[in-house]
């Protein structure tokens, strides 16, 4: 394992320190318990807090700022944060309108945020993101995983909160947006958790993992490496099938947002090539890709791979996607 690190135990604090110094205009860092807090926040709004295991940067701290998150709670690498972090973040940022947690749907994250929510003294609600259609919902599963679509949920809910909307409305929008997103990804290589020091999974030079999770969890199946057209066609088909299962009919001229997300080690050149394929395929299905995002937005450390995310838009979602946002990793309109 070769990484730019000093001691494995210090990675998180050193990286967070770098982040908060580089973006001192936007955020400030607190330790013991660790959370990153937005600067210049409104005094009267629903506070939006997210968090999760580290290693998915820029998720979540990179999305703190005007129009998106008010705080983020970073856990150890790929390990959900602990409730004391959420409590401290909520108490520090609370602005008289309650707290909305945005939580990726993993047992660990769910339970830690749940315990925080139970202990929290003021009004709160939670949106669980579960856009990963690699995990088929069945009698066997507690539920799908939250992956890159989380960024879209955070953007839209953050935008609504900025307008002064109440907790109930923010929660409702978050649930709605989440419901309208499907994602499917593929890994070409494993990631290496620094504390483990070796790749999370073994994969040969001729294999890919279809439907991999953003922690390197195994996905739908191990496959022989194929050309990009074939891999991305499978991702798009999985997403289209998922929309059917969800009873969300993708009708002609439906507008959609297409997000191509890199897992950390895949060059932008390949991500745009993937975008080219996915956009064409969706268009062939009559879907009007009117918003796009291509880049490393929800990563898995140093994993090579990418995911395709489609979000079915409506006027409300479009408005909140387009509205000004000023964070370290997403910025427009201001």
């Amino acid at each position, binding site marked *: 394992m070769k990484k730019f690190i000093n001691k494995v135990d210090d990675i998180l604090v050193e990286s967070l320190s770098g982040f908060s110094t580089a973006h001192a205009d936007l955020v400030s860092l607190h330790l013991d318990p660790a959370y990153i807090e937005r600067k210049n926040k409104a005094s009267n709004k629903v506070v939006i807090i997210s968090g999760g295991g580290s290693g998915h940067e820029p998720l979540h701290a990179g999305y703190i700022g005007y129009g998106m998150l008010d705080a983020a709670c970073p856990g*150890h690498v790929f390990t*959900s944060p602990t*409730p004391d972090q959420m409590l401290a973040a909520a108490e520090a940022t609370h602005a008289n309108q309650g707290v909305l947690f945005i939580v990726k749907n993993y047992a660990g994250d769910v*339970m830690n945020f*749940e*315990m925080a929510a139970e202990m929290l003294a003021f009004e709160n609600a939670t949106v669980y993101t579960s856009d990963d259609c690699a995990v088929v919902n069945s*009698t066997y599963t507690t539920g799908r995983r939250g992956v890159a679509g989380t960024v879209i949920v955070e953007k839209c809910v953050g935008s609504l909160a900025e307008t002064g909307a109440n907790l109930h409305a923010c929660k409702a929008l978050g649930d709605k947006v989440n419901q309208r997103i499907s994602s499917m990804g593929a890994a070409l290589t494993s990631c290496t958790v620094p504390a*483990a020091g070796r790749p999370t999974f073994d994969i040969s030079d001729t294999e890919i993992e279809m439907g991999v999770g953003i922690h390197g969890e*195994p996905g739908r199946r191990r496959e022989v490496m194929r050309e990009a057209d074939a891999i991305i066609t499978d991702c798009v088909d999985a997403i289209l099938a998922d929309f059917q299962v969800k009873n969300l009919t993708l009708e002609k001229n439906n507008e959609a947002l297409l997000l191509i997300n890199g897992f950390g080690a895949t060059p932008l050149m390949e991500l745009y090539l993937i975008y080219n394929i996915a956009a064409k395929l969706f268009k062939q299905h009559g879907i009007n890709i009117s918003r796009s995002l291509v880049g490393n937005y929800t990563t898995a450390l140093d994993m090579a791979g990418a995911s395709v995310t489609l979000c079915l838009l409506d006027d409300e979602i479009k408005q909140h996607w387009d509205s000004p946002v000023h964070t370290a990793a997403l910025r427009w309109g201001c």
Partner: protein
Amino acid sequence: METAFILYAAKEIQQAILTNENTLESLDRAIGDGDHYINMKRGANAIIGIEAELAQLSPEAALNKIGLKLLSTIGGASGPLLASFFISMAKQLPNNNNDHAHLKFVHAFAAGVQAIMQRGKADLGEKTMLDVLIPVSNQWLLLAQQNHDVAFICSSLITTAEQGMLATKDLIASKGRAAGLGERAIGHIDPGAKSCQLMITAVCNLILKS
């Protein structure tokens, strides 16, 4: 049960975790995200780190403190589950005053396991730590009610824990990170079941030795 015993047990548990790094890590790499060993180690070390403070407390206060410490240290799925276990155990311990000491402890253990079931919304057969904890809890209550001696109970629970742990191998997971795997989870022991078996065995052996 005395606080001193809790501290001895914590040390044994720490040893059991540390000496099984490869096993725990490999299991979570196979059907999870590879951090279960790191999480358990972080938790165990944190408890040993507050040993002196714990030593001053009553058993139930110590157990509660352990729960809270684990809650703010481990994270992941195992953190809130193990924390709930100790916090509920601490809450239960002062009750059942009619029982003799051993039975009180059995009931506290059962309350801890109940808390895990509630927090994780899980039951037997879902390929989690509960596949060790539920059988052990049931078996322990049974043997204690039958007034078996402690040595017999400990040996028996070691076997129960091992059987529960091994049984997870053939299961499909319906809770936790491995739930996404479907059939692919078959053939792998659940990491949380393994660590629970290790901890239970460590504590039972401690009792057997003393």
